[in-house]
């Protein structure tokens, strides 16, 4: 193997899901619960998003074999294109701004309507959430960049976690102060 080949091999090798789960098992013996996350820089390629979904589901299933509680974290930016996510954030932010002082009940139902217009993202999230529910694994929506300019993305992850929980999920939303 040449130097370039060795470099490529080094970069693409790494600590695997199996090793992470094995570590989780050892930590549990010490009284520490695991929160696994497949760390991957976001990409707009549909194949990358699909592979991320597949890996996350495999991770949840593996973590499901461990004692509970156990958690897996996901990032919306790994399951959606940048353009799609920014658009969704703008729509939900606009909605939350209008309903900010209008009382609690109105926001979530209206946000649900917005989310239905993003079937690919919501489909991925629904499939992941379903596997987590069946595996009794807590699903954590990890933090994104909260403020894209003046647009607050927190409302997007909050409404997504609400929707998934309404459908039986156990989804934690990351609330950034």
């Amino acid at each position: 193997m040449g130097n370039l080949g060795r470099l490529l091999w080094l970069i693409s090798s790494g600590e695997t899901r199996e090793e992470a789960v094995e570590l989780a098992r050892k930590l549990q013996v010490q009284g520490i619960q695991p929160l696994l996350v497949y760390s991957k820089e976001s990409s707009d390629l549909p194949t990358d998003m699909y592979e991320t979904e597949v890996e996350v589901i495999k991770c949840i299933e593996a973590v499901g074999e461990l004692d509970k509680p156990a958690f897996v974290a996901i990032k919306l930016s790994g399951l959606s294109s940048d353009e799609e996510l920014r658009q969704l954030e703008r729509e939900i932010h606009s909605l939350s701004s209008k309903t900010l002082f209008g009382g609690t009940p109105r926001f979530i139902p209206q946000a649900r309507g917005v989310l239905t217009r993003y079937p690919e993202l919501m489909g991925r999230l629904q499939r992941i959430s379903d596997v987590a529910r069946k595996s009794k694994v807590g699903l954590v929506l990890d933090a994104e960049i909260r403020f894209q300019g003046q647009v607050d993305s927190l409302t997007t992850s909050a409404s997504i976690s609400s929707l998934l929980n309404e459908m039986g999920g156990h989804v934690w939303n990351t609330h950034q102060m």
Partner: protein
Amino acid sequence: MSGILIRCNFLSNNLTHDRIFKDSLEQLSQWSGNNPIKLVRGAYLTQEPPDKVIQIKQEADNMYDTAVQRLLTQKDNSLMLATHNHRSVLKATQLLRDKYSEIMRRDRTVTFAQLYGMGDDITYGLVREMKTLNVPVSKVSVVKYIPYGSLNEVLPYLVRRAEENRGILGGSILEREALYDEVKRRIASYFGISTKLTEIRSDKE
């Protein structure tokens, strides 16, 4: 030290912190209802508008601690406190110790979370504390956040966290060093000169 940036939920620059915090909690209820909440100080400080970032670390710390206190005593949400701040963890555990029955009367769980390779003293201290309190792990747990993936996937995450910590945690040089140690460990492991992820450090029992 300059560049201590903790982001907070600013609605407007001229609002008082009490007002900002009150709105933040009200928004949390409005947006998240009773969903489980992972509470963090803010993760992408250098990429956000300066007017959305609290410039004084102590103020941000105080707001985080107040949020924890109010969420535990006034709300029903299950809560995951993701922090490497010793003082915040001490305050939260003290609150749990003092008001455990009241806090856990609500149907919820409380979790403390630290990144693998960081805050191990906090993590193992919490485990001992929970044993002392004799609370079931189904109600109060201690979590390690374990990122995995290939080197080119994990390293950007760890390096970014280390760089952010340089801005966030002025007094927490040890935490930043711990992150860089984790980066070095991951690189070294490929050359067979360091522990792999599956090998727990023996001095952490």
